[in-house]
């Protein structure tokens, strides 16, 4: 799992720089203008230029002056309740039966010998839930209004004092309520499934003659060894977990439930900077095709990666007996070296004034897993070059609560790669259940967005067409990163037309297009830019569903930080408003009885 750079922004940083004031406002204004122009053109074709202006402005006036203030909660509730009853009586609960059946037979397909069984189970239930719920949202939302139009039941509703706003909101809320009920049930079942799935017990196996160490029985495809101190002890870590071992009065060893499988680590991220080979501020090395923000440092040089953490207080780290650090760094080898040991590095804790620093804490990089280090509070180090005993929180953390952690590569000729999220301080744990709830909230938001889109499309398209349109948004939202890269021009090879010429003429993507006709080349580029800009706007307007999927956080044991949830909620509300307004305009200007 990778934490992307923009996911580390705090809510307000994101709101101001990535969404609210810039993007959101621009998108809102642009869409409003575009919507007005399109409505005016359609209306003009029907009524002529001056009448059209009157019609369009009247709809806007009615929304703001009449329909929005006149919207009644009781009517919205009545319509939502109707949508709920409709869905239930159309037997959507069958979805629940499918889910239960999937869980019942899941055991046949999930490998009990997997290295991280919790991760496997969590990914499985969350993926299963999200597919079922999104499909449900898709079918519920796209077919309801068209079915009402076809059966003309909507005529009995629109001849009551019902506003178009109420019809749209009623549908959205009703279907969301159905989805929520199902999602909550699936969530509870999933939780039970995961908890029961990882539960296993060992018996005590061979015990050493002094009774202070031993081995457990081989169960669930593994066995542990354990050490006792007094009547209590712990096993070693196997497949991501340990067990507590207790010795009872009659000399029996009891091995407890697995611990450490269901985590919700709360990471404290820092800002990452690099020094160059001369030890001066610089940027890290790029060793080839890598994510733009992943950089490397060279072994046995003065290059280092420097994380600066803020607000480092003992109270945030369970009293501060140790400073827990977790890291997952990459290694890049230029020579085979000691392939068994792995690439080595060192951690140094430093005061921001550079005069106080800890001794080097060596480590061997564990690629593709999380390396946990507990740095003791008291450790040796130096002040102005003089060796002293230091206390991390009293001596190394500065008066503003800032702490620098330097990482160096100590293996000559090898490189260590890192991005800002790859090393963090672990500030305790949130509870797994709460984290799973936040993961399911992500699925809920995706479902809500699908329902909003489905209802919006169904106000002017027939059921099947609305479904295809919603599905297109879903697919683009989930898998549209390539299309988005084409639209932004990040993918080499130019725009759609240029690429289309490059394929049959077998021109490489990295060289300039050469057709022997500069005017033609220029024209193609201009047209391509136009297409790309249009694509860009369209893709920007489609919610990127992938972003809302936080199941990886749950599966890999990271707490879904509240800033991320707040950000997703903000986007959900923004899309809800946008789709509702569009749906309102289509419904308001549609002849209900003409269908």
């Amino acid at each position, binding site marked *: 799992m990778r934490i992307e750079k923009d996911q580390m922004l705090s809510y307000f940083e994101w709101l101001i720089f990535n969404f609210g004031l810039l993007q959101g406002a621009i998108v809102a204004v642009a869409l409003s203008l575009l919507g007005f122009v399109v409505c005016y053109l359609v209306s003009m074709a029907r009524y002529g230029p001056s009448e059209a202006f009157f019609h369009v402005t009247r709809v806007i006036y009615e929304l703001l002056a009449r329909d929005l203030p006149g919207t009644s909660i009781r009517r919205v509730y009545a319509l939502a309740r109707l949508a709920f009853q409709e869905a239930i009586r159309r037997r959507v609960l069958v979805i629940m039966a499918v889910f239960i059946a999937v869980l019942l037979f899941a055991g046949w397909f999930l490998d009990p010998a997997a290295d991280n069984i919790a991760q496997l189970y969590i990914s499985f239930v969350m993926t299963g839930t999200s597919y079922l719920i999104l499909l449900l949202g898709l079918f519920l939302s796209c077919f309801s209004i068209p079915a009402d139009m076809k059966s*003309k*039941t909507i005529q009995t509703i629109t*001849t009551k004092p019902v506003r178009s706003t109420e019809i749209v909101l009623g549908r959205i809320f009703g279907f969301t309520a159905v989805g929520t009920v199902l999602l909550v049930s699936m969530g509870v079942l999933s939780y039970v499934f995961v908890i029961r799935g990882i539960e296993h017990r060992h018996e005590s196996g061979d015990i050493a003659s002094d009774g202070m160490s031993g081995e457990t029985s081989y169960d669930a495809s593994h066995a542990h060894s354990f050490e006792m101190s007094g009547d209590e002890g712990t096993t070693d870590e196997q497949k991501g977990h340990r067990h507590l071992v207790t010795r009872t009065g009659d000399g029996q060893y009891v091995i407890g439930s697995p611990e450490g499988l269901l985590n919700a680590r709360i990471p404290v991220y820092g800002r990452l900077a690099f020094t160059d080979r001369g030890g001066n501020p610089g940027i890290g090395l790029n060793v080839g095709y890598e994510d733009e923000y992943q950089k490397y440092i060279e072994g046995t040089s003065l290059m280092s990666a420097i994380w600066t953490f803020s607000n480092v207080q003992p109270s945030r780290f369970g009293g501060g007996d140790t400073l827990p650090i977790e890291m997952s760094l990459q290694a890049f080898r230029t020579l085979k070296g000691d392939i068994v040991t792995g690439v080595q590095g060192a951690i140094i804790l430093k005061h921001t004034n550079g005069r106080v620093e800890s001794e080097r804490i060596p480590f061997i990089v564990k690629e593709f897993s999380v390396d946990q280090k507990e740095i003791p509070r008291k450790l040796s180090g130096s002040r102005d070059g003089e060796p002293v005993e230091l206390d991390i929180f009293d001596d190394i953390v500065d008066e503003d609560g800032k702490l620098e952690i330097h990482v160096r590569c100590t293996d000559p000729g090898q490189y260590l790669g890192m991005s800002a999220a790859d090393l963090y301080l672990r500030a305790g744990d949130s509870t797994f259940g709460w984290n799973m709830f936040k993961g399911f909230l992500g699925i809920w938001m995706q479902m809500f967005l699908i329902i909003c889109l489905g209802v919006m499309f169904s106000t002017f398209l027939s059921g099947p067409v609305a479904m295809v349109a919603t599905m297109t948004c879903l697919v683009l939202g989930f898998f549209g990163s390539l299309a988005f890269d084409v639209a932004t021009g990040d993918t080499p090879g130019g725009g759609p037309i240029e690429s289309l010429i490059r394929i049959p003429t077998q021109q490489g993507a990295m060289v300039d297009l050469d057709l022997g006709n500069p005017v033609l080349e220029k024209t193609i580029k201009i047209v391509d830019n136009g297409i790309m800009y249009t694509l860009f706007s369209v893709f920007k307007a489609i919610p990127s569903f992938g972003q809302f999927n936080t199941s990886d956080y749950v599966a890999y044991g990271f707490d879904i930080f509240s800033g991320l949830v707040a950000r997703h909620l903000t986007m959900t509300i923004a899309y809800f408003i946008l789709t509702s307004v569009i749906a309102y305009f289509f419904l308001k200007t549609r002849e209900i009885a003409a269908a």
Partner: protein
Amino acid sequence: MSASAAVETESQPSIDVDSDVVIETRNLGKIYRDFWGRKKVAALKSLDIEVKKGEIFGLLGPNGSGKSTTIKLIQGLLFPTSGRAFVFGKDARDVTKNERIGYLPEESYLYKFLNAEETLDFYARLFDMPAGERKERSDRLIRMVGLHQARRRQLREYSKGMTRRIGLAQALVNEPDLLILDEPTTGMDPIGSREMKDLIIKLRDEGKTILLCSHQLADVQDVCDRVAILHQGELRELGRVDSLLKVRDVTEVHATGISDETKEKIAELIRNDGGQVVSMDNPTTTMEELFLDIVQDNRPGSRPTAN
């Protein structure tokens, strides 16, 4: 004949209750177009009518004459191509006018998965009614339309006549001032049909205005105060039913207890006076009267239900 040229054939004031105009259409026209905006059919051509408070106004015409189109334009379910329609002085597209309207569509377009109680409760909620009032009204209306024994059955199990009844109940749930009924007696048996007509007259007597459209001529004749006859989207006739139907050069005499001799004397008198006896016979009753005499005690509400 264009609508604007339609002549009011009545000689008296159109209605004696009140002269307030409830529905007014001005030059109302509707052209249906296809997807590309090409004209398909002119369903209604410049209609000018006024429906006044407290009258039963009938829209009469064969299939495809523009009756339903007119009703839909008046309710804002369709948008006019030309002209405008006003209800209670408000534009037809203003939803707030619906507070005072009850509408029974051609076929009762109701949610089949709801039962009678849920249906009325749902539509009452759409009028923003509090719970107590909803309960009281739906109880009263279910009883009134004779469905109290089937109140818990889903509408999908209802017969066509029962569906019309619950449709009527939902149209009355807000105690409307204007009732718009599209083919109100379709699918009803003679008893139901008679009850419906009696109810329409009773509602009129309570001061409500009723606009109904039908091609059941007998229904229109029985209940309507005024009618507009539409044909191919044009208004062909507009006026009071009694004056429209009056055959001015024929005189009808109803008498009982006279002998054949007296009849002959009357005929003789007419002939002597220069008149012509067209027919002199015993009147026949209508099939509806005959049927109602036979089955008068067997109302559908009293029939035990399946459950």
